[in-house]
């Protein structure tokens, strides 16, 4: 039982204190049983406050520490480390969330928010009284790392790992590497060909002894957790009639680089699939790249006037894909410039919703304006209309750059500037239990603090599977993810949280309900002392607590969140 608890209540520079009367909270808890110190602080996470906390622990001989601040997702680790520097067991630290769950949630009710904050802090104090010292589980980690997807991000992640003397297994579903990039001609900003870029990266990678490349291969199942994943891989037969090969590999960490898909317009969306003069951006890029001669031709027809309709499948006001796909503006402008340079008589007409050539890419926009490209801008509620008049294709648009005038033009080709969408095949995400964001791309833990990590320990995300990115942005993300994966397992040993489920084998009489409830396959039936009982695999268990309430005989407890601790919290809250 803790008897010398220190409580810190954070203003969060106004994030909390603008809505919660932090001083009132302090006064309400300072005389609670066991509390010997209660302080408010402007930024609990600041270096100076951390130093003060360490000094307080020593000076006041504290045996329990509570910080009431933001979500534990942000700073649980920060304050556990502070507790440890004060020479207390870091798992005795208790975190109270009075920002996301109080001040932000109840910004319209300051009195109520303050009341709730008092309750939340008191509950944390109740838990702190029972908090026991815990010790992390240590185990050996497999040092090989798997990279799933061999597009530009996956290839670069593999090189980065190989450079660090790490063994890499690179798994690609297609029979070739290079993803979308390999299919592209001239790239914006460098004018290098996509295929050449992939060739030079792949020729470097393929010579490396510590990289094992599996093309035509799919991951079909995954077991285990950080340090010890077992991936089952199915390799498609290279020659028809050959048997399907399956293999198992053991890896310590996984870099997911499964990329994106081009948005595919619905039939009739801007006359797509109804008018054969309407094509998508990737098809147009391919057409321009593969065509030779002085005049651009499509379907045997000479092409002079080209209308580009922007934001097809991106920035949608209705339905999905509310996001901006970020690469398309620059990509289409670059291709339009290429087209004009390569073929005679081209007039480019850009029907856009505001050009987003951010950063140095702006220079391409300026170049295209100088070359005489026309830019017309429409509002999201008045998209351009495309219709046939005999064999002619006519586009009408309400152009806000000429005060909303309706303009009509006859064009030879309409290019739908399609954006990036998440892969339809979500099997990897489902298998690895990766969370998705509102945009349906895989989500990082925190955009700024942990931008390539996922909530599943040991699994990082790289490139466009996380959201639209151009090539150099994908590479930056891939190298970041590779380094993170490397740092998980490079030491060869790993520590996992001691907060795991614990089964009382005296009481348990295996009914299997806990195993059914476990989302991580961490519970197995085993015979212990001649009796069938549930056994927890502590390196897989995440301490989520799903198993504890379903046990009919109350044989499972969660270390760090024992029934005793929870009951004491509920009593305070009730």
């Amino acid at each position, binding site marked *: 039982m803790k008897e010398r608890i220190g409580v810190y209540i954070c203003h*969060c*520079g*106004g*994030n909390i204190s603008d809505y919660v009367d932090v001083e009132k909270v302090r006064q309400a808890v300072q005389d609670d049983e066991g509390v010997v110190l209660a302080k408010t602080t*402007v*930024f609990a*996470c*600041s*270096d*100076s406050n*951390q130093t003060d906390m360490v000094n307080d622990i020593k000076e006041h001989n504290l045996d329990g520490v509570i910080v009431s601040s*933001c979500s534990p997702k*942000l*700073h649980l680790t*920060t304050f556990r480390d502070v507790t440890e520097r004060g020479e207390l067991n870091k798992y005795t630290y208790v975190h109270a969330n009075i920002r996301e769950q109080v001040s932000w949630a109840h910004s319209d009710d300051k009195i109520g928010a303050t009341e709730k904050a008092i309750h939340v802090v008191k509950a944390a104090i109740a838990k702190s009284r029972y908090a026991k010292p815990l010790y992390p589980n240590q185990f050996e980690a497999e040092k090989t790392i798997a990279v799933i997807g061999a597009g530009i991000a996956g290839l*670069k992640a593999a090189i980065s790992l190989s*450079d*660090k*003397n790490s063994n890499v297994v690179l798994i690609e579903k297609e029979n070739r590497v290079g993803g979308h990039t390999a299919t592209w001609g001239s*790239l914006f*900003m*460098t004018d290098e060909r996509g295929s050449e*870029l992939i060739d030079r*990266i792949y020729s470097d990678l393929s010579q490396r002894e510590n990289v094992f490349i599996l093309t035509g291969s799919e991951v079909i199942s995954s077991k285990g957790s950080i340090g010890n994943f077992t991936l089952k891989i199915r390799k498609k037969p290279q020659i028809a009639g050959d048997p399907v090969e399956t293999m198992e590999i053991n890896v310590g960490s996984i870099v997911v680089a499964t990329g994106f898909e081009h948005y595919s317009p619905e039939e009739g969306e801007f006359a797509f699939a109804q008018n054969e003069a309407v094509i998508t951006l990737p098809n147009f890029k391919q057409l321009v790249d593969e065509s030779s001669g002085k005049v651009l031709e499509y379907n045997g027809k000479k092409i002079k006037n080209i209308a580009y309709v922007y934001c097809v499948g991106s920035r949608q006001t209705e339905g999905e894909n*509310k*996001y*901006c796909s*970020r690469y398309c503006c620059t990509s289409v402008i670059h291709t339009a410039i290429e087209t004009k340079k390569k073929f005679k008589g081209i007039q480019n007409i850009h029907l856009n919703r505001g*050009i*987003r050539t*951010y*950063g*140095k890419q*702006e220079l391409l926009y*300026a170049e295209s304006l100088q070359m005489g490209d026309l830019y017309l801008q429409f509002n999201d509620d008045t998209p351009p209309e495309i219709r046939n008049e005999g064999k002619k294709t006519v586009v009408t648009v309400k152009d*806000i*750059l000429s*005060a*909303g005038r309706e303009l009509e033009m006859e064009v030879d080709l309409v290019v739908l500037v399609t954006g990036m969408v998440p892969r339809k095949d979500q099997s990897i995400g489902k298998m690895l239990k990766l969370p998705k*964001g*509102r*945009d349906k*791309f895989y989500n990082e833990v925190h*955009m*700024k*603090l942990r*931008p*390539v990590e996922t909530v599943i320990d040991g699994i990082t995300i790289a490139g466009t599977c*996380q959201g639209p990115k151009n090539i*150099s*942005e994908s*590479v*930056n*993300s891939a*190298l*970041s993810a*590779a*380094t993170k994966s490397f*740092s998980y397992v*490079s030491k060869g040993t790993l520590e996992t949280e001691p907060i795991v489920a614990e089964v009382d084998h005296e009481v348990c009489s295996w009914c299997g309900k806990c195993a059914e409830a476990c989302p991580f396959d961490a519970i197995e039936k085993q015979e212990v002392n001649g009796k069938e009982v549930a056994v927890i695999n502590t390196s897989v268990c995440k301490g989520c607590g799903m198993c504890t309430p379903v046990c009919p005989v109350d044989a499972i407890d969660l270390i760090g969140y024992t029934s005793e601790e929870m009951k004491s919290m509920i009593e305070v809250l009730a």
Partner: protein
Amino acid sequence: MKEPKIIEYDALVIGAGIAGGETALNLANTGYKVLLVEKDHSLGGKMILLSKVFPTLDCAACITTPKVSEIARHKNITVFTESEVTNISKESANNFVAQITKKPRYVHVDDCTACQLCEQACPVSVQDEYQYGLIGRKAAYIPFSIANPKAAVIDIENCTLCGACERVCPTQCIDFTMETEYYELHTKTVVLATGFTLFDPIEIPRYGYGRYKNVITSMQMEREIAPTRPYNTILRPGDGKVPDRIAYVLCAGSRDNTVGNPNCSQICCMYSIKQAQLLMGALPMADITIYYINIRSFGKGFEEFYQQAKSMGVEFVKGKIGEITEKDNGDLILRYEDINEGVVKEAEHDMAVLSVGVRSNPTIGKIFNNGALKFDPLNFVAQEDLMGSPSKTSIKGVFVAGTATGPMDIPDSILSAGSAASEAISYLTQHQEV
């Protein structure tokens, strides 16, 4: 000049903003010894001075201060503040020799308790650069409340050497005998994370910055809404009035050849939208208008953030501001072409915020011998293999992170830092001692 002290580290990281800090942490967590050199008095760069950050509205300090604290405490990282790298020469593949000048702070950081008695005693007042000139500070001062190291500094240029600070200091940590220290660093790899500078709108006289008190920069507004803000509320500097009508002038010094910057600065649209949202929270009755050419909300969650601002009632007007004039009462008249209506209009605002853009930081230009380090036409560090290895520079073993290569937002800077750290770790692994 004194003989330099010889020191040795695996890696030198120049610049301790968010990119440099992230790079140093990545290297240090992999076991390498890092020297992190910062010319300013605190770690954290520009980010530590921001209010909240888009598109998540996390408070910048909540993200920066723990990182900064981790850096300062890391056993593999040594931090030099008030220091500049004056020259780097590459002797061989993994031997760079750097000359470092560490200026005196006139305060022994380890002994200072940041009690601020010196600040109270100091009779000299000057403009506070950390509050971007909105208020004053003393010549003996703590840079800002969440600075790291949190210790006093003596601004020797403005100090009158009256000794008042020294007399009140309870720990005798003020020491006017401190001298510039010189170091010769031997290191195996170098990461440049020297960041950017903000455009100075004095270059566009028609906006009246510097002449009209109620025309401020976006960084000044950032300080007004930050938790460590100077006024504890939002005021216009001219007369201290709480503004009701605030205008944002986008592309101030960006996408503008007349001031020599054809680039888009990439961050201004988003930080302006963010400030507008924060201002709507702080001043619920105020009207916020953003004058723009194009809104560039391109990153993850950015477009949604833009739409959110619109639905909150922020007014977006398509049209670039041509000129700002001041009325007798300090109110401002903004003249612009309303693109949607195709007419030139004027609008009155209490205050105008110039959304200033990103310029290159000129300080790294000359530190490499023989111009070995290449730059782009706007003096950002050139990326030799933009698509394949974005953090490689023209010198093998020298990498670049964050906005030293061009405009970038915080998430991209952090990924770029991860990338530079990855390349540096690979380089160190491949060039181990032979």
